[in-house]
């Protein structure tokens, strides 16, 4: 496998001029970030976020976030007396390219750590590379769980840190009895909806009160589905929509909701993938009251958050630039990595991986998040309502921080599993059989 790959690369380099020419023609050459010459007095930090293609809409901001955090850290003197240096690559929303670029970052640029990926499929694509070359990936986005890997640190929310508390809120506070689970057709919504369906049934919700609906990526004609939701909601029981609709499809979905006159007071929609960035493209006045569940909102007033927003807007020279949840996840993850490196007094991945569990770093909402042995972190959960100005108003939050579960308690087959890289050195330890291994091994 490896020899074959090396061979391929040799062939590629012989045709280097051709590739370069093609790259230029296609406008894909992103020269401003080409890696500089290796210098021994810097620590290299890899940034693996798509800057072109479909996911650029979300991931470009995260690239900027890491550059911003590195800049701030360097102002404080860097780490272990060395300056940090970002190596930015563009995997172009192309899943196999993610693996290729990850390999390039680790073998060619010799980065100490990589911050990157957005979609689960891109994370799955780079996983073998990180295992094989033994490096560290910080993954900042809420995901479907069911994973705990030695080389990956998950700073976004697991389902029990976003989906379940949101459903609890709707059940208790809005007295919702009927549920529409609407999502884009890929792994995150499918798994999350499976978890939610099991959870709702465990709370006594009947099958006929749950409607599950999937749509293709980038779906733009929502007329039928919104009409279906309206119909489903007219059964005399309070109805809510739990939306795992991804990225681009959200704007036409919300526009259709607004135009068909579905107000949040009638059928509230709680979304797991809609943040400040996504709302920047819509007029939010018809959407006031629809909900989102995150671990961070820009509108949360804490001194740390106010400073972060101010510095971020100064760094990007854009006083309107918004912040969002995955950015906070990178903020926490980056600071945890810095602390772990300082604790281990080395950037050696093995030492840093061992140092990370137990590391605490302040989050932006006034708490202190902690890296857990399963490589997930503790976070508070907030429910926010959309306001007329495109921001969120927090209407509910968990009393304390919620520990991220790598394996969902709701799903058959994963409820006995735990991830523990400290004691058991295993990502899928089965507590029933006391053995390492099981689903996902």
């Amino acid at each position, binding site marked *: 496998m490896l020899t074959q790959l090396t061979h391929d690369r040799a062939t590629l380099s012989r045709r280097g001029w051709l590739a370069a020419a093609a790259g230029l*023609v*296609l*406008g*894909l050459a992103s020269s401003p970030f080409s890696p500089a010459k290796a210098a021994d007095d810097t620590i290299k930090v890899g940034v693996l976020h798509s*800057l*072109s*293609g*479909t996911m*650029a*809409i979300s991931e*470009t*901001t995260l690239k900027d976030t890491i550059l911003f955090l590195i800049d701030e850290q360097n102002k404080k003197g860097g780490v272990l007396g060395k300056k940090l240096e970002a190596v930015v690559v563009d995997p172009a929303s192309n899943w196999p390219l993610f693996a290729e670029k990850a390999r390039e970052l680790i073998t060619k640029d010799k980065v100490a750590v990589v911050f990157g990926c957005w979609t689960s499929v891109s994370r799955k694509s780079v996983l073998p590379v990180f295992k094989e070359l033994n490096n560290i990936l910080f993954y900042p986005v809420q995901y479907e769980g069911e994973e705990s890997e030695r080389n990956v640190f998950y700073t976004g929310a697991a389902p029990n840190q976003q989906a379940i508390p949101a459903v609890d809120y709707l059940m208790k*506070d*809005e007295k919702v009895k009927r549920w529409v689970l609407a999502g884009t*057709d890929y792994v995150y919504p499918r798994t999350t909806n499976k978890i939610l369906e099991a959870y709702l049934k465990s709370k006594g919700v009947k099958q006929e009160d749950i409607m599950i*609906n*999937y*749509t*293709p990526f*980038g*779906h*733009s*004609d929502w*007329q*039928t*589905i919104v*009409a*279906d939701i*309206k*119909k489903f*909601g*007219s*059964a*005399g*029981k309070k109805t809510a929509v739990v939306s795992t609709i991804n990225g*681009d499809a959200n*704007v*036409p979905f919300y*526009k*259709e909701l*607004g*135009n*068909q*006159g579905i107000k*949040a*007071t009638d059928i*509230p929609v709680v979304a797991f993938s809609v943040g400040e*960035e*996504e709302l*920047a*493209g*819509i*007029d939010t006045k*018809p959407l006031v*009251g629809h*909900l989102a569940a995150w671990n961070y909102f820009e509108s949360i007033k804490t001194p740390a958050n106010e400073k972060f927003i101010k510095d971020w807007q100064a760094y990007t020279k854009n006083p309107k630039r918004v912040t969002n949840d995955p950015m906070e996840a990178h903020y926490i993850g980056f600071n945890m990595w810095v602390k772990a490196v300082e604790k281990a007094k080395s950037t050696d991945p093995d030492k840093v991986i061992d140092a990370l569990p137990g590391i605490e770093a302040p989050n932006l909402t006034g708490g202190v998040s902690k890296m857990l042995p399963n490589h997930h972190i503790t976070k508070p959960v907030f429910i926010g*309502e959309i306001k*007329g100005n495109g921001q969120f*108003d927090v*209407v509910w939050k968990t009393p304390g921080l919620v520990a991220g579960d790598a394996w969902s308690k709701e799903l058959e087959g994963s409820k006995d599993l735990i991830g523990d890289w400290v004691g058991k050195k295993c990502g899928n330890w089965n507590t029933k059989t006391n053995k390492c291994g099981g689903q996902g091994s």
Partner: protein
Amino acid sequence: MSGHFLDRFRALFLSVVLIASFALPAFAGTFEDAVAKFANDEFSDTEAAIEAVASSGNPLAFPIISALQEERLSADPESKKVFITQADGKIIDAATGAAVDKLPDNAAPVRLNNRLRRTVEAALGSLTLLSPDPAKRVAAAQSVFKSHDENSLSVVEGALAKETDRAAKQAFTEARAAIILFKSDASDNDKLDAVSVIKSHGDQEALALLTSAGPDQPPLVAQAITGAIASIQSNLAMWSAVQNAWYGLSLGSVLLLAAIGLAITFGVMGVINMAHGEMVMLGAYTTFVVQEVIRSRYPGLFDYSLLIAVPLAFLVAGGIGVLIERSIIRFLYGRPLETLLATWGLSLVLQQAVRTVFGPTNREVGNPSWMSGAFELGQITITYNRLWILCFTLAVFAILLAMLRYTALGLEMRAVTQNRRMAASMGIATSRVDALTFGLGSGIAGIAGVALSQIDNVSPNLGQSYIIDSFMVVVFGGVGNLWGTLVGAFTLGIANKFLEPVAGAVLGKIAILVLIILFIQKRPRGLFALKGRAVEA
């Protein structure tokens, strides 16, 4: 709500208070305490305050609650004072009505959540039942219909007795029926009447009301409710077929709009133009730029922004189209594979260029007021933006057809595409016509972008989501035939919308693709194949 209305309202308010105070417990004396609760910034306290204020009979109740709904009510958490910012910008103390110079520095708007918004709507409903404006009375009656709050019964009945406006009378009758249906001590006969009134209302809201009233009713009433539900459901099922047809037309119009430009560049000229979607995207970004300029310089023109954007988008996309034809495509005529690769590369270049200039995130393109909202036609909801897009598409199609048929340029285009050498020997400058034809196709794609910006994301990826569908429509309809494109688009749209409720959006789309593959096997030239020598040329 206008200040003018508030004034008129105050004059009438006393009479409301008189009627309301019979039905509602009075909270005189505690009014100020109730108002102060708004300052606690706790949802439960706000809810208690709304209920106390709404039932207080105090003339300030209506201004307070409507200010709350419109986020004009602010509270100072320290002094527990609550203020109303009136529509004219003046500020008054909510508890006393006394004028105040300015808001204290730490006063913040009183926050609401969905539960409270419902409480506010219900409270406003019962407070505006006697409004002098019939439309307001109808809205109020409808909100009572939804909340069926027993306390409003006497007010509703009082209003009903005096009502002269037909629509308002109907709304009051229905509101009264809703209350009686849920009133535990109403007689069976009253309830039966109520069921039949609600049944004749006949929409999904009525269905929801009847379904939730179902349990613990006397047997006779329960039976009537079951019957009413069944009849409403069968009625709605019939309407849902009409609804699917409308959705199909609407989807078809979007497909058609995206595909017309391609029907020219690919259909008429035979250029496999993968950058077609990016022309649509450029049109959408032109709309964005136009709106930005209007927002900052001439805010009054916002409702005309789309009309201004249409010719500009045509010029921008058309101009770039001509440029592309002159600089790239003209060297590649007759080499479809190279054209495909070159235009695909071009589409990536354009996307990245837009991403660099405008940033990767979505841009907000607002909907002018005439593009927002919906109206009810029978039991289906028709949204204005979809309706306008359908009209717009048909207009663009008609203009294009007329242009090809009746103008000199149209004649030359047809001549060149049918027989290039013959046309050239008749003295037509074929290369000029090629450039103009490609420009025309691109320009129309740009116009499509203006319309699509109203329903979709304005992002660098906008074009990608339409390119496949556009090719599908053109190939299905028959390459080279505009009428084929029209019929193809509407056939696909309607088929898709009738499949979607049965198979789901994902499977529906797959089914359509499979059907097209089968169809193309049978008729490789599409629905309306061109015949004659032109095809062989």
